[in-house]
């Protein structure tokens, strides 16, 4: 018999690392929408970052494993609305991205028309950077290069 509470569940779910960017957690990304009892089962509601993000199913599996680790049965439900935005990434998440060489998205970007925002280099801080490719190694990143230190870096595209 487990004595885990919903707060315990919320904590372990928030601590599940993102499979593609393992230094940020689901809590950092802001993708956990709700944690509720549904009979004897914990129902965790997640929202995907990108519609086609291949990590979504891996994340759901890891969430179920984390809750099962508390001795509870879990089910994951995905909701699309309201749509996730990079504005939901927490301060901690933004810092974790920067600390790991990834330029975080600028905030307040919930526009459907694209601004021309230039991220600064996560390695040397220079603002002399240029986009190499709008689409990068994962669904949420673009590939950029720093003209000062010469290093390429990933940039989480504002969405």
């Amino acid at each position, binding site marked *: 018999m487990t004595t885990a509470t919903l707060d315990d569940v919320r904590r372990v779910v928030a601590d599940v690392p993102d499979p593609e960017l393992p230094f940020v957690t689901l809590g950092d990304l802001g993708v956990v929408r709700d944690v509720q009892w549904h009979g004897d089962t914990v129902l965790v509601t997640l929202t995907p970052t*990108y519609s086609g993000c291949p990590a979504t199913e891996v994340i759901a599996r890891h969430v179920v494993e984390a809750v099962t680790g508390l001795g509870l049965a879990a089910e994951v439900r995905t909701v*699309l609305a309201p749509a996730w935005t990079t504005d939901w990434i927490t301060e901690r998440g933004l810092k974790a991205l920067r600390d790991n060489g990834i330029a975080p998205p600028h905030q307040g970007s919930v526009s*459907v028309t694209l601004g021309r925002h230039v991220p600064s280099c996560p390695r040397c801080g220079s603002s002399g950077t240029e986009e190499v*490719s709008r689409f990068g190694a994962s669904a949420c990143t673009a590939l950029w290069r720093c003209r000062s230190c010469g290093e390429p870096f990933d940039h989480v595209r504002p969405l």
Partner: protein
Amino acid sequence: MITRTDLSLATYCLRLGDDALVMSHRFGEWVTYAPQIEEDVALANIGLDLLGQARALLTRSGELAAGDGPAATEDDLAYWRDERAFTNVHLVEQPRGDFADVTVRLLWFAAYQHALYAALTDHPDPTLGGVAAKAVKEVAYHLDHATQWVLRLGDGTAESHRRAQDAVAAVAPYVDELFTDDELVTDLADAGLAVLPSSLRAGVQSVVTAVLLQATLTPVTPTWHARGGRAGVHSESMGPMLAVMQHLARSHPGASW
């Protein structure tokens, strides 16, 4: 109890989902064929966004058509329907062509999807509204990507200009079908449950025309129009494409990885 409106809405979701699914498959075909590795990655990522839209839309279509009965899943609909049951427009099923072809095709399709999803974000069906609200932001990136490349190709070398202009002419007959109304969508639109395709025409055309002109390309008026995709009548390239897309699921039912 399944209402007529539910069935119509199921078909509407299927149409939007089939457009996204088939276009996604064609983009997947570009991997290792694009002119540079960054474009392999870009086209694959755009295909992935479209696949995400397709999965949600096909799932919803299956639910709406089933009522309280067992619903067809996204996989049932993607892998186990035959050609005549696919409701996508001809534009998305056209063979890969060259890089100018895919770029100009994406310019039209992304401009269309962007206008469509922007108009569907407040749809009363939570899934359809949710997909639209999410996808409209992703499609903005697709549209921007296509725009940047059309400008570069059209206003680039003599060779890239010639091929981009050929691509503009090649896609022209497939554009009108995107903006064609029929009874089903008209009835749904009257009930506030669909966007009338014809209502998107002027806005999309002006977006695309502005890009073409800036790219020093000339818009082309086609001499014929593709028809019939929504009713399951497809062009010659659809069958071979489906044979590839459905082969694994049909030869190894229940396969997983």
